[in-house]
């Protein structure tokens, strides 16, 4: 079966080729889609390749950072916590050079385990997402974007540099693995503490109960368990995640306090 | 002795670092077909209907191989050792593990071979599956093997590997303490970076050249010849460059079916497993359930040991009867225990068949024995080195299968280990040797085993 392959040369052309997104599979770095194609798990009829769409950039304007959708993960390594360390924790040098911000954020949670490492870090940073698709272009919070189920084409993400940031993750036995559990924290310049976890639900999730108890890291760690519905999967058991989540939250909050 | 202690170049190193070493997948022959396998999606099921005609009619498909194409369908890996055969090369009327091979499609390219597999019409009737070796003996357990849930063909049609030595009941009567432990190492996939792969080439003189990743070339040759019912001189098996094996490439996993497809299509056929197939359907190291119960004295002697091994063979026997035999020989480890009661069963489950991996059978029993020795020391409040040295094999001691040790190295190894760990042994233990037992080191309970003659 021949696949209709589109290689747009601008973000505008990409938006046109994407249309309302129906029947379109998007490939940026290829680390997810090629795996599906190689194993016959995906047999798409139309594929949008974004490597020439001009969406690879990290811009800083004052305290606002804007990252294009096809920016490789390697290019985030120099950014402050939690985003920089979170990106550096993904894969190995080759995968980070290939995998993109958009691909990672839009990774569809498989039935086997949660994916999308950057979701937690960018939720903690209060990031907004500019995307295109049905109804044209729009900008919204990352949580709203994620809840729309990956049916839109992500163009870029923006966030304000935090006053302090921290990232803690369970160690992975091999770079192939997705992180079984990670916690990101950011202290905004207005004093708000935001916490988010990856690996504790099918997408990244804010830890609002833990945020409410942020002054006491230990208490916040326990409170975080109320914010998540943990599951058993190939990467870790719910029991193990439940035992380690409070510790990661406590470590992140302690680091935020030390930086503040 | 010029080679001892000298640097020796690896003869294959330059090929490895420059990418010129030729592995099976790198061999190039013209007009080669690619193969894909239809595998069981169920752990245990009857095959109620199979029709390959749609696949065979597809453009680009050159051969479909099913059980009907195999001259000798069922051949045992250890038939030469008297272990009967139970595993068909391709499933006939039932499947007993998820991933079991059923039908191979050889086609002009990989995509067509894959489409051919998808075009095979097959129906199953699922059956209850068994995964827990501990439940295999229950009367209401799923029956999963025609021989019963455990292997019944040890010598003399025994249903277990059995050791009885000394007087186990008396040992337990005399014991100050009974110390028990259960040890359950899990299955391990070998994960060679080169997956199972074969290239079979029909030659113009009627012979077959088979490029194989086997670890055991002449063994593989015999297995292929038996299934194909051809004399050995019809086969030229080319091996020697293996992209990692670790025991997992002793079983002849890909060669025979590739050979059949090459013969049927009259074309070279390559069958390279995907990583997913390797994890799903290639053999693993077995998981074991091991129970040890020791009769011990307060001063650290182990008078007797009762042991049960349940060796998870997976769906077929393969080499497992040999593996559990290793357990029977090694179930006292490097130590002398005069009164023994050992039962080892090869238990069938609906897991992938298990096989050799690095020290077949010995690593698992050693894990159990050494962990248990530390447990004994812990429960007696003794130093773990001292308990081991006290019970260590000495010259003239006898093994569970009544072999007399002529030069056991247990004492020396333990002393070296203590030294490496910076542990200072007490005088009597530091000065201990492998010499025959005498004095305090020959208590009454160890006298009898010295007199054991023959096997």
């Amino acid at each position: 079966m021949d696949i209709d392959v589109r290689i747009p040369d601008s973000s505008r052309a990409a938006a046109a080729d994407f249309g309302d997104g129906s029947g379109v599979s998007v490939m940026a770095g290829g680390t997810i889609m090629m795996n599906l194609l190689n194993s016959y798990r995906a047999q798409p009829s139309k594929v949008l390749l974004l490597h020439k769409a001009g969406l690879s950039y990290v811009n800083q304007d004052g305290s606002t950072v804007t990252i294009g959708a096809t920016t490789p993960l390697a290019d985030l390594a120099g950014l402050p916590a939690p985003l920089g360390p979170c990106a550096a924790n993904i894969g190995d040098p080759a995968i980070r050079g290939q995998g993109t911000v958009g691909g990672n954020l839009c990774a569809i949670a498989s039935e086997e385990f949660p994916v999308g490492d950057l979701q937690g870090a960018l939720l903690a940073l209060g990031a907004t997402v500019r995307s295109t698709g049905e109804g044209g272009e729009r900008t919204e919070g990352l949580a709203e974007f994620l809840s729309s189920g990956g049916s839109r084409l992500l163009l870029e993400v923006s966030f304000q540099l935090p006053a302090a940031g921290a990232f803690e993750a369970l160690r992975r036995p091999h770079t192939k693995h997705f992180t079984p559990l990670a916690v990101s924290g950011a202290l905004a310049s207005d004093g708000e503490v935001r916490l988010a976890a990856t690996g504790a639900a099918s997408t990244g999730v804010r830890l609002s109960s833990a945020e409410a108890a942020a002054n006491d890291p230990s208490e916040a760690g326990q409170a975080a368990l109320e914010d998540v519905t943990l599951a058993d999967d190939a990467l870790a058991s719910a029991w193990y995640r439940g035992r380690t989540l409070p510790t990661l939250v406590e470590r992140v909050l302690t680091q935020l306090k030390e930086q503040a | 002795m010029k080679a001892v202690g000298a640097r020796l170049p690896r003869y294959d190193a330059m090929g490895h670092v420059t990418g010129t070493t030729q592995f099976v997948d790198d061999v190039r022959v013209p007009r080669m077909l690619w193969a894909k396998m239809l595998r069981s999606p169920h752990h245990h099921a009857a095959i109620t209907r199979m029709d390959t005609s749609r696949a065979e009619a597809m453009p680009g498909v050159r051969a479909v191989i099913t059980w009907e194409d195999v001259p000798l369908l069922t051949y045992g890996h250890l038939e030469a050792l008297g272990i009967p055969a139970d595993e068909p090369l391709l499933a006939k009327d039932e499947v007993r593990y998820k991933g079991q091979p059923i039908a191979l499609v050889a086609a002009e390219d990989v995509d067509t071979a894959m489409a051919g597999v998808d075009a095979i019409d097959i129906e199953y009737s699922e059956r209850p599956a068994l995964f827990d070796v501990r439940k295999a003996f229950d009367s209401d357990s799923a029956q999963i093997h025609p021989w019963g849930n455990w292997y019944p063909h040890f010598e003399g049609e025994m249903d277990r590997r059995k050791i009885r030595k000394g007087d186990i009941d008396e040992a337990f009567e005399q014991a100050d303490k009974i110390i028990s432990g259960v040890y359950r190492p899990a299955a391990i996939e070998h994960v060679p970076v080169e997956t199972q792969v074969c290239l079979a080439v029909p030659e113009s003189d009627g012979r077959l050249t088979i490029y194989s990743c086997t670890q055991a070339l002449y063994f593989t040759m015999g297995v292929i010849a038996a299934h194909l019912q051809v004399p050995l001189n019809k086969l030229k098996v080319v091996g020697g460059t293996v992209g990692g094996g670790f025991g997992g490439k002793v079983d002849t996993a890909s060669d025979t079916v590739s050979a059949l497809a090459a013969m049927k299509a009259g074309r070279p056929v390559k069958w390279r497993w995907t990583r997913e197939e390797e994890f799903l359907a290639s053999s693993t190291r077995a998981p074991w359930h091991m129970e040890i119960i020791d009769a011990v004295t307060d001063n650290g002697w182990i008078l007797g040991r009762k042991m049960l091994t349940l060796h998870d063979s997976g769906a077929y026997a393969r080499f497992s009867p040999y593996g559990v035999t290793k357990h029977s020989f090694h179930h006292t480890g490097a130590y002398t225990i005069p009164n023994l009661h050992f039962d080892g069963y090869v238990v069938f489950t609906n897991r992938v068949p298990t096989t050799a991996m690095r020290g077949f059978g010995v690593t698992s029993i050693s894990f159990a024995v050494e962990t248990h020795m530390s447990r004994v020391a812990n429960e007696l409040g003794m130093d773990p080195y001292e308990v081991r040295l006290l019970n260590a094999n000495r010259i003239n001691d006898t093994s569970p299968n009544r072999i007399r040790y002529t030069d056991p190295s247990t004492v020396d190894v333990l002393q070296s280990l203590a030294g490496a760990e910076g542990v200072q042994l007490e005088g009597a233990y530091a000065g201990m040797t492998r010499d025959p037992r005498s004095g305090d080191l020959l208590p009454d309970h160890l006298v009898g085993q010295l007199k054991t003659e023959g096997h």
Partner: protein
Amino acid sequence: MRIEVNGAGHNVTSPPLASLLTVLREEMDVTSVKAGCESGGCGACTVLIDGQPRRSCLTPVVTAVGSEVTTVEGLGTPDSPSAIQQSFIHHYAMQCGFCTPGLVVAATAYVNGGGSDDLDSVAEAISGHVCRCTGYNKILEAVAAAVKSSEFDLSSTAVDKNTVVIKTGGAV
């Protein structure tokens, strides 16, 4: 589509989303890139694209158009091995050899990129590569040594050369 591999051009006949791995192996007979998992997990198919390490199994061939692809064949030959290839031999940093081309490629990117001889840094650089034989230590040593030196002794030092009858690069 035309791609450049080890300095030579090649007109691709596979479809645009075919993996670079498949094109290299099956169209061009560049067999040093290995199909270990075809899902990005083993590192055995790693190539350099414009000098950076990439998984050829995860690279649609069309995205390599206009870039320079380098495999281990392009880094050195048996007659003229690179420093890293020499270091791997000198340190016995391989056994079966199946993962070795990918590791040599990743190590080359690391050393050329100014990587240090700190073993933790080396470990991070090769962390995407699975080797089931060596236990990695000799590989780490080989890469770290290649950071500091460009020539390595590949001969035996005590054995009469006439006793070594098997030539390098022998396959089957």
